[in-house]
């Protein structure tokens, strides 16, 4: 079962900090991921990590710049996708 959005967002903060990007100490659910260097290559890695961890498949139509903007935006997306599957 997928956790609630605030918990999910915090989990994503940890995941991104530990596995993906160089993050400042103040990194939080509403930090701008593009400012931290999220590029298309890093997005691929993030897709893999998220889909493996939460067992969801993020559909084509939802892969937009806005949905990857912050950990919180991603948490909303994951939550939505896990409810609909």
């Amino acid at each position, binding site marked *: 079962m997928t956790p609630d959005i605030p918990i999910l967002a915090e989990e994503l903060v940890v995941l991104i900090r530990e596995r993906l990007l160089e993050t400042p100490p103040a990194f939080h659910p509403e930090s701008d991921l593009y400012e931290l260097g999220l*590029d298309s290559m890093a*997005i*691929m890695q993030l*897709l*893999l990590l998220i889909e493996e961890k939460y067992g969801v498949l993020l559909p084509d139509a939802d892969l937009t710049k806005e949905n990857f903007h912050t950990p919180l935006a991603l948490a909303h997306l994951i939550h939505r996708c896990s409810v609909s599957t």
Partner: protein
Amino acid sequence: MSCDVLVVGGGSAGIAAAVAAARAGAETLLVEQSGMLGGTATASLIHSICGLYRIHSGAEAIPGNRGFALEFAENLLSSGGARGPLRMGRVDVLLTDPSAVARLADEITTRTPHLRVWLHSQVIQVSPDLAEVVIFTRGRLHSVQPRALIDTTGDGTAGALAGLSFEQETSDRLQRPAYIYGLHGVGPEALVEDYRLKLSRHLVDGVRSGLLPETALGASFRESGDPGGMFVSIDLPAKDFDPLDPTSLTALEIEGRALASRLSSFLKNKVPGFEASFTSRHPARIGIRESRRLQGQYRLETSDVENGLAFPDGIAVATWPMELREKATGPKLRYPVGEQPVEIPLRSLRAAAHDSFFMAGRCLSCSHEAQASIRVIGTCLATGQAAGLAAAQWVATGLCDPANIRSQVV
């Protein structure tokens, strides 16, 4: 033959160094091993210049070094050889056409008095006292007696041949190399920015289904600016990679071409928008980010970059964050604490053991992490100009004037 300043390596730092030294009146020889100037910006198909603008949160891009770096960028823009700058988070990059960079380098160097360029030429011997350098051109040897030498080879090869001390990171921590190739015939629907995210979806599925090797996850895409054109950049995991070993380099070039070929046929057969696409160009060589770092009179430290330190002999600013690519999983950008860029001291451009030996570009004296900031082309243009001015001053007067150099570079 003799010359005042010998510049070894015709990449961005070498072009800047040679033009700056010659403009200052020094009889200058620039030696480049390939048939074209530009280094990674041409031969390795790097199609953007990073480090030209300051890190900031405002809307307008602010130039970092206003000397030769800005001159080169403005020339590219006015000739149609560049687009942008493009904002990416807190940094701005200039998107460039590698062919235009090569042509601009030809134009600038040929119209500069006191400057001679030798393509197809490689330095193969440097005497320990730096009095004689042997240059190899297709089986012929040329002896050159320079009064000052600038190493802009990226690999610090002139320094290594002269027996200078250097550092090199272990292969597991070296910044990963990038294989960049060109695609054409890409449909317009695939050339918009948001499509790159959809491409991520396709590539992840391709790897999961076994149609693509896992190394394809190091790929990123950018439209090249010409009709139907796109560049594909692949960071390679490059296990046990040695950037100075012929077997290792050969294996990487072969791996890069094979991976490009598999990726191209996957895109063509499986991804909408790529049905008519084809590989239009391969790089002349893989893009190496890091190898030797020569030992200078000062080693630019990681904490210097983090804290945006200033130096009494600062001659250029490094405006790019430390872009760590120790793994092929995307960049890790480490920003300085404030928005103040670190200054690069002239001492980092001067060999510890020889006053007449200068270095610029990615082999200057610095830590592994600091190199991840200063290695980018925009900063190479600036450190190259500074080294050229310093070498010309040293030849003319036996002294270097950092304040004067800074006023021309920054």
